[in-house]
């Protein structure tokens, strides 16, 4: 069941991206192009997704535990630090260059555009590089 639920969640997510038009990098880039061919659609995607999740999370997180796992696993970090902001800034530059973020890029693999087939492996390299750098000894927080 755990695996079926996660497959279904992935399928729903991908369908949402397709239905919303976010599998088309042009729509994403036009959302970001506020000085040019602006297309506000992405704001509606974010509103629909965040609104649904806001309500759904309140119902779900009121339960003692998830249906098929022992406990909810929510992020525990609370500090807004340099790493968070630097990572987000770098992510934004890549997002603005391509109009792809991870979800739409992976979903688009099935559409087989050559650019997608170049973007996704490069993204995976970036992911591995960031994890390796984050694990590097000289970057570990000093213990007092």
């Amino acid at each position: 069941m755990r695996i079926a639920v996660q497959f279904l969640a992935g399928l729903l997510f991908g369908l949402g991206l397709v239905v919303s038009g976010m599998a088309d990098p042009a729509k994403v880039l036009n959302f970001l192009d506020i000085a040019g061919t602006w297309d506000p659609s992405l704001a509606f995607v974010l509103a629909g997704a965040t609104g649904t999740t806001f309500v759904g999370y309140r119902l779900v997180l009121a339960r003692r535990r998830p249906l098929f796992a022992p406990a909810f696993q929510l992020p525990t970090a609370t500090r807004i630090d340099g790493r968070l902001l630097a990572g987000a800034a770098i992510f934004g530059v890549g997002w603005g260059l391509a109009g792809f973020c991870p979800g739409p890029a992976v979903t688009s693999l099935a559409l087989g555009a050559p650019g997608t087939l170049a973007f996704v492996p490069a993204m995976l390299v970036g992911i591995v590089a960031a994890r390796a750098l984050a694990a590097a000894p000289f970057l570990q927080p000093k213990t007092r």
Partner: protein
Amino acid sequence: MVETAFTPWSSLAGGVLIGLSAVLLMAGVGRIAGISGILARLMPPSAADDGAGRLAFVVGLIAAPATWIALTGATIQQTVVPAGAVAIVAGLLVGFGSVWGSGCTSGHGVCGLARLSPRSMAAVGTFMATAIATVLLVRHVF
């Protein structure tokens, strides 16, 4: 640059589907629907727990276009797709930045904002600002 049609209703409906996915994942396995996190934990060194479930999520994502085409007979429009060096550089930046900043448009944008997480609000504000600045530079300055 190409004009794209403003699609408030289909975009809102698609957003609701994305939200339902996030709620389903939390209700089922208690996890945030953050695509970059799911991908990162599948890559070496991979997380020991529930790799099959994460892979199933990714397979579901990839199966979505074919499912949509089978259900509706519609085609899926990609007006432009990044190509060549831009695709590679952008991919590297998106992958690196999403892990370094602990999330992307789904983890911070959808799930984090829905949790009213101050970290996610800061991340979304930051990546929206650099993305808008990047498009401004690429399309209107250079």
